């Protein structure tokens, strides 16, 4: 049968898009290559009895529109920013967010600039990508920029995470609980699990070409009037289309889009409480940044250590604790070959040494450990270079300067982490893509 829309990826974006389109009366098929839907919103036992959200601990908050449309009822704990930067009194940033989420307008750089200038008076802009280090005069702003993801404060563009909405996590059950709520919202759409989308079929007609379906890994063909890809821009544009099927300008802009570099995660199961109650950052050194550029295993990257079980007791058994360690600036590809078990162990050992120095006694209490390297994120989530942000959050790749949901190819929509709406809220990219698709029908 022919579907009105095929959605590639059953993460928060794909599920949101599916739910919105279903509610509008369209027939939708969601294609997911993993055995279970949920994308990065997955909580799993990584050691018997100890659970953690595998790929991230926090997500951008869920925009109110999505909460309402999908009728999600998840008790979230949202960290509000120290200064009310999301809703300034003059409304500049709030308006900017609203516009970035509206599908029909491309927000010009001038607006971005007007929004950010009052926040950071006297900072050079644009011309250089803001590093979070430059915010040292506003320590709470700096802390806010670094919260939730292990951004290296010296990395160009790291201050741009300020433009993402507040970080949120559910009160119980890790991000997997959010994932299940999204799945339940999209429950009336059929999924195809365990099957990868290998190609988007482009049909050329009298009025130019348009996307007309998806070829799956087993050779079967899903016919659809429109295709929403929730993969990042690079994968969507460079890997999903037959050669020369896309307008050259689109391929070129996708090729120039920069990924922000991968992150690695360590999940630690501890036999006794960890001794810290709030997340803290151990900054990286120059050698780590050099190693990242060279493609070597960085031994002293920026680490964000988060005692997740202190906030959510359901993750660890009584008396135990779960620490997650997010490492920034880990190369997805190494100059000397693959990510072997030895290199993972090297990365974990170096991180554990530093954690032991910061939290003495951690090693003695260690019951289990799991290392998630950038290639694992790439393999399991399909995130190019293991970059969960879908592209570097630099000034020229933020908000209106990120790709729009609507592309140059009619019938093909981007609903993934690379789009303008993505950093603004969980599911926002899928929501925008679905609205664009509905507007075009």
């Amino acid at each position, binding site marked *: *049968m022919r579907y009105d829309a095929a959605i590639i990826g059953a993460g928060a974006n794909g599920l949101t898009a599916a739910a919105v389109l279903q509610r509008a009366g369209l027939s939708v*098929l969601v294609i997911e290559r993993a*055995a*279970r*839907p*949920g994308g990065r919103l997955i909580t799993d*036992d990584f050691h*018997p*009895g*100890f659970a953690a959200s595998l790929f991230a601990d926090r997500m951008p908050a869920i925009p109110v529109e999505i909460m309402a449309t999908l009728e999600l009822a998840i008790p979230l704990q949202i960290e509000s920013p120290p200064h009310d930067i999301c809703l300034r009194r003059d409304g500049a940033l709030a308006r900017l967010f609203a516009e970035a989420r509206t599908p029909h307008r491309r927000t010009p750089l001038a607006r971005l600039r007007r929004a950010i200038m009052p926040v950071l008076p006297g900072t050079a802009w644009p011309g250089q990508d803001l590093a979070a280090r430059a915010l040292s005069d506003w320590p709470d702003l700096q802390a806010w920029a670094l919260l939730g993801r292990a951004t290296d404060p010296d990395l160009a563009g790291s201050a741009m995470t300020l433009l993402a909405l507040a970080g949120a996590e559910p009160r119980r059950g890790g991000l997997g609980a959010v*994932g*299940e709520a999204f*799945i*339940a919202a999209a*429950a*009336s*759409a*059929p*999924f*195809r*699990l*365990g*099957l990868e989308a290998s190609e988007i079929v482009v049909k050329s007609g009298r009025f130019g070409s348009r996307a007309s379906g998806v070829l*799956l*890994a*087993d050779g*079967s063909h899903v016919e659809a009037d429109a295709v929403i890809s929730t993969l990042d821009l690079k994968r969507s544009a460079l890997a999903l289309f037959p050669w020369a099927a896309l307008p050259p300008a689109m391929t070129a802009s996708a090729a120039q889009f920069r990924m922000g570099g991968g992150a690695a995660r360590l999940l630690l199961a501890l*036999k006794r409480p960890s001794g810290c109650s709030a997340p803290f950052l151990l900054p990286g050194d120059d050698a780590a940044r050099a190693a990242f550029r060279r493609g070597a295993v960085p031994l002293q990257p920026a680490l964000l250590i988060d005692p997740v079980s202190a906030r959510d007791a359901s993750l660890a*058994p009584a008396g*135990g604790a779960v620490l997650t360690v997010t490492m920034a600036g880990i190369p997805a590809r190494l100059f000397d070959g693959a990510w072997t078990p030895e290199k993972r162990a090297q990365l974990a050992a170096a991180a554990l040494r530093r954690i032991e120095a910061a939290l003495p006694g951690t090693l003695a209490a260690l*019951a289990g450990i799991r290392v998630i390297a950038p290639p694992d994120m790439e393999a399991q989530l399909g995130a190019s270079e293991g970059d969960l942000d879908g592209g570097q959050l630099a000034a020229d790749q933020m908000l209106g300067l990120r790709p729009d949901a609507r592309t140059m190819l009619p019938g093909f929509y981007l609903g993934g982490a690379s789009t303008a709406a993505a950093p603004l809220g969980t599911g926002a990219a899928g929501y925008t893509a679905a609205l664009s698709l509905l507007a075009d029908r």
Partner: protein
Amino acid sequence: MRKHDALVIGASVAGLAAAAILAGAGKRVLVLEQQAAPPEPIGPVYALDPVLLSQLRLSVRGLRFVNRDLPLALPGIVLDRDSYAASRTLGSLGESDAKAWTPFRREVHALARQLRRWWWSALEEGAADWVLERQAARDYFARLSLTGADAFLAAHFQSEALIAALLFDASAGGFHVSEPGSALALVWRAAQEMAGLEGAAAMPVPGTLVWSLIKAAATADFRCCASVTGIATKAGVVTGVRLATGEVIEAPLVLSSLSGGATMALTGAPPLQNRVGEVRLLISLREKIAFPPVRLVLAERPGIYADAHEAARSGRLAAELPMELAAAAPDKITVTLRPVPAMLGKDDHAQLAARAVQALSRQVPGAAALVSGVRFMPSTTGARATLAHLLAPSAVRVKTRFAGLYLCGADAEPLACLSGRAARIAAALALKDPALNSEGSE
């Protein structure tokens, strides 16, 4: 044009297997799963159907086993598949039992060999008489069908501990172990062993069984969080299912991996009274423990089966319950308890968990301190197996009184097990169903 050729209720092992076969034949299949993702079965798989295994190429698709042949054991004694080794270890129970073991194995397996043909040629129509080709065999089975499992075993062995351990397999499917015909359950189980995957019980590496089945069923559509509240029928023919959301999905075929009773209840028929079932739970430990690769049955005397059965029929948990322990991983132990009431409350769960942990720590001292979590698997309860059920042609158990509605779950086997054979039979029959071919499928 219709959207779906067949609906499968439940993404369990059986549901996924049936979906994989139908989807492999080019049919448009929709799998409806109540949870957010296909659930992972826990514990040993009894005699996974070898035909299914090769037809769906599950090992190519990632199925791995921790252990492919878990022998039955009782505390201190492993009943190895090598019957001479087993009889040597049985010496501690008494010389007569050690001597009786090899003849008993030989006798049960001779009977099982008769049933094995029937297992392999499951798709052929007809009653069991052609299976039991020799008159002598037929007479023997007729006698067995009047014998209770405990009496059958008591004729061979003297040790109560040994009899009690062997009765565990006979009590599957809700049999009362003294019930006439329950001796056949032992023979059926042996036939499963002989025809199944190398041994009686295999332990897959956690996660790989579901993953390989999902890969096999990749062209099927899934709906997660979709709970089926009714099966729509019209003049004895299935027309589709109703979901909790009020949505109706139409299809000419519905395969249910739920139990027969639950499936019939969905069609609006009066629910069957089935009051006896089993429960399975997974104990996670913080550290690895040394647990032998066996199915360790804990049942001290044969009498506790009858007591537990009586209690379960009146909806209570007995003071003593037979249970089976097996290691899914060095730090994961699965426990199967039966017979228990089909409907269990929250308090019962807590009590069962406490008993299982207690039993485990009696076998492995200090294990109780390492427990980090206990997970329950929804109990697979079904219509109680009867002798007629056991020897009836497979098609009878798989079909229902509604055209187009098939049972593919473990419940459609005479003895509840996860073999996947019922799914294969149901899918094969569904493929031949006239409803599938009469309307144009395009």
